[in-house]
């Protein structure tokens, strides 16, 4: 693998829309390995932060920097959206699409698509229109479509929302496998159990800013702020 | 799929080819509706190897087409307009070919009683007195101009008429359709009337007066005005239209046993 695109540094990042501050100012640095979990109440700016990192959200101030030029960095990240976006094509064609954009050789595309179809257990649905899949199947397909390019960094926005236990396990297994292959993962979730299972470090978002951040053990074991403690208890935070 | 559509389109486009010499002749609706063209055009094609493409329009538009140089010649029936056309230099000269006649059509019951009129003017006076529905072409065609001239002769002006006088602004056939629908009086050329397929309650009520004769003339567009016109073909056609062969075909053309046109082209 070429030199990592990490670390990622956010300086003074803010997103404002129609005079309302949705995010920031945020100053943050993410190291080269591990899985970062972002938690926080609804509307606290998790998605906005994730999109800002990925570079698909227009910033009002500040900058997002990788260790390599932006152009290069962009090609080595992938993003799974909160509501999975299915191309109006077959399941296999959805997997093929990101590789076709790279103009990879046909044979290689075919091999990778077959591999990923097997990994997400959708071989039998390969020729089905992707928009007809169930919610859980769509999530798995979206993750496979993101990982099929072997990105250095994978962003996931609540990949397990609305999924049952088994589907959640299946997705966590995919993520674990990606971690083992040294993929850097940054994801949001509302499932605190999942957060504890996967996180190597964590960020707590509140009112558009990073309210607390730290390594997983410290973050979940000894929260520093009252608000995070309250959030763990499931209280409503003012 | 796009490829298939393209292939199909190309196949269709190439399907028609052009071979013979072609010229464009603007004629009046009444001439076209007479059916005479169906007899003359094949003969012209046979004798001259010439494809005459007919633009069927009103006299007004036919003259405009000639002025603009969009046709090579015109065959119309409105003497004053034709003479002006030549005087203004749009046509080389005016050549009379043949004539037919106009007839008054109306409800078979003839509520205005025009069938017994002594002249065309009297027939119109009776109509304006009874005020039954009357359909006028209203399209500046030769027929329309003739109708207005007849009203003037009768000492009446349509502008002063009430709602019973309807200008439809349409061709002969369409106007006859309207008249049939309204059970109205209308001035038509005999040929159009005989060929009309939808007479409903209408009947021929008055005809034969000399004032109703309708002279057709051929005018070649002046090549000095429009260098691109096929004047050579127009001259050929004029020669043919004034020939013995044309005379026989025109005089011999009948519908339901009735002769429609009388050839009267003089030598040049």
């Amino acid at each position, binding site marked *: 693998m070429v030199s990592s695109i990490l670390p990622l540094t956010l300086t003074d990042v803010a997103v404002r829309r129609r005079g309302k501050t949705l995010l920031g100012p945020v100053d943050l640095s993410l190291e080269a390995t591990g899985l970062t979990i972002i938690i926080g109440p609804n509307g606290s700016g998790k998605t906005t932060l994730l999109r800002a990192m*990925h570079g698909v959200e227009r910033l009002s101030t500040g900058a997002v920097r990788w260790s390599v030029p932006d152009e290069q960095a962009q090609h080595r990240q*992938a993003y799974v959206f909160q509501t999975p976006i299915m*191309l*109006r094509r077959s399941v296999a064609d959805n997997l093929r699409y990101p590789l076709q954009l790279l103009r990879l050789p046909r044979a290689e595309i075919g091999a990778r698509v077959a591999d990923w179809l097997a990994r997400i257990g959708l071989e039998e649905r390969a020729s089905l229109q992707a928009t007809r899949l169930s919610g859980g199947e769509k999530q798995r397909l979206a993750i496979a479509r993101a990982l099929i390019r072997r990105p250095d960094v994978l962003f996931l926005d609540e990949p397990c929302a609305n999924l049952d236990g088994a589907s959640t396990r299946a997705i966590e297994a995919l993520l674990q496998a990606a971690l083992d292959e040294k993929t850097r993962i940054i994801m949001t979730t509302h499932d605190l159990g999942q957060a504890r299972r996967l996180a190597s470090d964590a960020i707590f978002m509140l009112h558009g800013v990073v309210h607390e951040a730290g390594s997983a053990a410290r973050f979940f074991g000894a929260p520093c702020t009252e608000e995070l403690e309250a959030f763990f208890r499931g209280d409503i935070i003012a | 799929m796009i490829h*298939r*559509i393209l292939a199909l389109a190309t196949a269709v486009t190439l399907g028609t080819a052009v071979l013979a010499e072609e010229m464009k002749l603007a004629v009046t609706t009444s001439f076209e509706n007479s059916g005479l063209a169906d007899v003359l055009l094949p003969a012209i094609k046979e004798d001259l190897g010439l494809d005459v493409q007919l633009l069927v329009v009103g006299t007004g538009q036919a003259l405009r087409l000639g002025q603009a140089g969009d046709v090579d010649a015109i065959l119309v029936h409105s003497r004053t307009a034709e003479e002006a056309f030549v005087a203004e230099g749009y046509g080389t000269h005016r050549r009379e070919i043949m004539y037919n006649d106009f007839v008054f059509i109306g409800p078979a019951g003839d509520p205005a009683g025009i069938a017994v009129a002594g002249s065309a003017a009297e027939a119109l006076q009776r109509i304006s007195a009874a005020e039954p529905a009357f359909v006028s072409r209203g399209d500046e065609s030769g027929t329309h101009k003739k109708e207005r001239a007849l009203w003037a002769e009768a000492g009446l002006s349509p502008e002063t008429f009430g709602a019973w006088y309807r200008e439809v602004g349409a061709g002969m056939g369409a106007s006859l359709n309207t008249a049939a629908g309204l059970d109205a009086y209308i001035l038509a050329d005999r040929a159009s009337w005989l060929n009309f*397929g939808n007479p409903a309650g209408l009947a021929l009520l008055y005809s034969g007066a000399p004032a109703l004769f309708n002279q057709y003339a051929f005018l070649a567009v002046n090549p000095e005005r*429009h260098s691109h016109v096929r004047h050579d073909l127009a001259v050929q056609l004029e020669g043919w239209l004034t020939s013995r062969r044309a005379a026989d075909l025109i005089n011999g053309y009948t519908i339901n046993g009735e002769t429609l046109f009388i050839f009267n082209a003089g030598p040049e």
Partner: protein
Amino acid sequence: MNDIYDGLLSAFWLVVTLDADLLEISLRSLQVSLTALVIASAIALPLGTLLAIRRFRYRRLTISLLNALMGLPPVVVGLLVYILLSRSGPLGVLGLLFTPTAMIIAQVIIITPLIASITHQAMRELWAEYHDLLISLNTSGWQRIRTLIWDGRRNLLTASLAGFGRAIGEVGAIMIVGGNIDNATRVLTTAIALETGKGDFALALALGFVLIALAIGINVAIHWLSRTEREGRW
């Protein structure tokens, strides 16, 4: 009622005897409208897609203009094309007036805004759906257009068919610019107008039925060719 029955009957006979005139007129109708369709689609499909995904300075204006043009009465288009192509008009030297080419030009002008507008509507929806993903995947502008056109092909087909329907059924403009010349520019719609004028309703109706059958036939054939009917999510 009797007219309709007569019309059906003569339509039937015209078709089963493969009447030469009918065949020629129908083929010309197809030739003119399909050519116009291909040209208009080549302009309108990319244009509509571009309007959906690109933000440029006169985008709003272009869209309003398209919507306005969509409502253009065909006769007005016919008149304008007529004046342009007339020998005394600016494009007179081309000598195109009263030719099938003139009819194609008029039809292209009539249906391009329609196709572009429907394309724009459909592509805007699809773009809203795909936007984030295509940005995230670092697609180039051209790749985006291709993806949208491919995945929206069924909508584009509908847009094109709407254009075709309008073109083949149009009479006002092509009557003016084509002149309804027998054996040269007479098509189904102008022939219908002519026969109606002569009071020959049966023949007019027969031609009308042929026209309807042709329009339906083309629709079915194109759907079948593209085989989008079998799958698809609608």
